[in-house]
């Protein structure tokens, strides 16, 4: 009797301890591809992490994890050391994330910008950055005097091509004569290469520069050359106060907080998230008043319409460079087409590097 009672007490205490621990010890891990101070991609993910921390959840991060053989070890170590939810924030972590997820079925994984969800504990998420590009295109089309828009592109993956197309379509709508010139730098972050690319585009007559790379170098070059520019990933206004018209901001904070709370409370489910202006994953930095209050009002209205779904970035008719129809008049491109986009629309110069 006494023994049984003791056993009961011990097991209750143990259960209490375990369940109490489960909540207090709930931890979220983040794997970053760059340093937290890059003022671009990783910086914004770290802002998201800080929001999770502010919501009362413990977090850990590992920065500058190469996308090679090291990624798997880091992800595995996070899983092993008691992290319950792990965000892997670069495309190159796709295979390692899925590999580790297989061995840790009780840990949840969230992979940014990938498409593989091989196990039920892997979700993917990305943002509809192209909606922001539509706004940039509208401004660029209105602001350009030379009708040449310079675009610094990273890799010819669908996400980047989608951005180029969305921007070009929006710019054509307000200014049919514009041409989009592209320089591929084949890097996400290389201030040297990016500033050379910006200079090359300016030399070719571009008076509006935009970038799908993460450093602040292009906007600084634009500031010096006295042409317009747009920031990327975070608000880069302080690096080029005169030149920047606005920045597309990646705001991961609401998503990270929501998913972390869901995982803590046991309501986390596998999903593929693609959020945009509506949900706030894509946000716009304050508009530069130098473009005039009329244009600011126009763009703000367009932003509202894109968020509400009244306007879609890819509304037909859309033609490719050869003039073949891609999206028929009156319809919009579906997500499947957007996800695999690998042709330029009419008005973009050059070929996609293959």
């Amino acid at each position, binding site marked *: 009797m006494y023994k049984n009672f003791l056993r009961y007490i011990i097991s209750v205490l143990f259960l209490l301890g375990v369940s109490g621990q489960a909540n207090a010890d709930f931890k979220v891990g983040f794997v970053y591809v760059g340093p937290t101070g890059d003022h671009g991609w990783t910086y914004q993910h770290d802002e998201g992490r800080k929001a999770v921390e502010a919501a009362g959840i413990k977090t850990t991060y590992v920065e500058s994890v190469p996308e090679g*053989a*090291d990624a*798997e070890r880091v992800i595995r170590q996070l899983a092993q050391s008691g992290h319950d939810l792990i965000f892997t924030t670069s495309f190159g972590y796709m295979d390692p994330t899925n590999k580790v997820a297989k061995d840790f079925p009780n840990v949840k994984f969230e992979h940014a910008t990938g498409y593989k969800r091989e196990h039920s504990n892997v979700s993917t998420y990305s943002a509809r950055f192209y909606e922001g590009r539509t706004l940039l295109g509208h401004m660029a089309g209105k602001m350009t005097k030379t009708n040449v828009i310079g675009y610094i592109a990273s890799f010819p993956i669908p996400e980047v091509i989608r951005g180029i197309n969305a921007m070009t379509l929006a710019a054509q709508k307000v200014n049919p004569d514009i041409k989009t010139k592209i320089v591929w730098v084949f890097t996400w972050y290389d201030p040297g290469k990016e500033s050379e690319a910006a200079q090359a585009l300016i030399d070719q007559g571009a008076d509006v520069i935009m970038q799908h790379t993460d450093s602040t170098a292009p906007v600084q070059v634009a500031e010096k050359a006295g042409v317009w520019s747009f920031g990327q990933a975070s608000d880069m206004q302080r690096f080029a106060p005169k030149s920047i018209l606005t920045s597309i901001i990646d705001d991961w904070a609401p998503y990270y907080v929501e998913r972390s709370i869901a995982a803590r409370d046991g309501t986390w489910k596998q999903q593929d998230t693609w959020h945009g202006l509506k949900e706030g994953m894509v946000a716009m930095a304050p508009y530069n008043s130098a473009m005039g209050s009329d244009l600011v009002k126009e763009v703000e209205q367009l932003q509202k319409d894109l968020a509400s779904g009244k306007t879609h970035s890819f509304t037909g008719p859309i033609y490719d460079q050869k003039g073949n129809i891609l999206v028929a008049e009156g319809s919009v491109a579906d997500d499947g087409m957007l996800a695999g986009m690998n042709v330029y629309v009419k008005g973009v110069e050059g070929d996609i*590097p293959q």
Partner: protein
Amino acid sequence: MIKIEKRNDVSPSIYFLTPILAIFLTLFGGGIIFYVLGFNPIEALKFFFITPISDLYGFSELLIKATPLCLIAIGLSFCFKSNNWNIGAEGQLIFGGIVGGGVALLFYGHDGFYVLPIIILSGAIGGMIFAMIPAILKTYFNTNEILVSLMLVYVAKLLLDYLVVGPWSNPEGFNFPETRQFSESARMPILFDGLRIHAGIFITLITVFLSWLILYKTYLGFQIKVSGLSLKTAKYAGYKGKTMIIIVFMISGACAGLAGVGEITGPIGQLHRNISPDYGFTAIIVAFLGRLNPVGIIFASLIVALTYLGAETAQIFLQVPKYTGQVFQGMILFFLLGSDYLLFFKIKFLGLKKNEL
């Protein structure tokens, strides 16, 4: 007045003990850095140097990380011993990876035991050929091998960039800069279930043994050492300097190529832009920390590999900045070079002489 004089005799045991002294000084210096950063130094050092290898998985990871470093450093020791400054092992690694990876893609979907050996061999040859460029330019055109080999690193990197973005990119990969995953037949066999340690470690051990054999038991090894000590003596003895230079570069390149092919057929399994986190440069530290001695290099590669793993664990558990790993690597080299200086030179305090006043 202070006078610096060369020491005439350096005890060989002290020569091999100074790297260990350098490591202890690094630990001490690291402890101070952790203390200044506001961490408990003992705890931080424990997370840095003990936690990463406290289980089997960690130990396997240590070997994975040390394997390429050891291979490259072994190759470099041939060059450095003979006064040839091959700084471009990173490029030779990448080029070996490119050639090996190209062959692996060629054999995509093929089964058969012969696939992997062919890939490994072609990777080694790739690295070898790439290393011959600075060697031939040095011997026949009198160029500086440091510059040429270093510049060729960027050539190899850009070539890899071009290939994975363009012609070799995965046709089902949405244009992402990477090739297909190699077939199973092109992958290094895993030694233990659940661990990543693969058969590449045997290649490394065999290479270490062979290099010991060549360096200490063959005429070529003797030539290499003599040329390293004094080029004039080597010439006087009638050694064919040009052939030897090309041979040491070939050995060095082949080792780096093997390291590259080991990475892509081992833990990575495909070609992409980041097949090496600068192993070729870090291996230079490893080579010198190991005193250009095969056995020393094994230990040195393990220690330097540990600084990588330690930086990750320390960030996970204590949120110590990741770059402390590089600080540790730098400190090891600094203390090693510093103690070397004191080993080979002595500082004499002479006091002031009258006539100088």
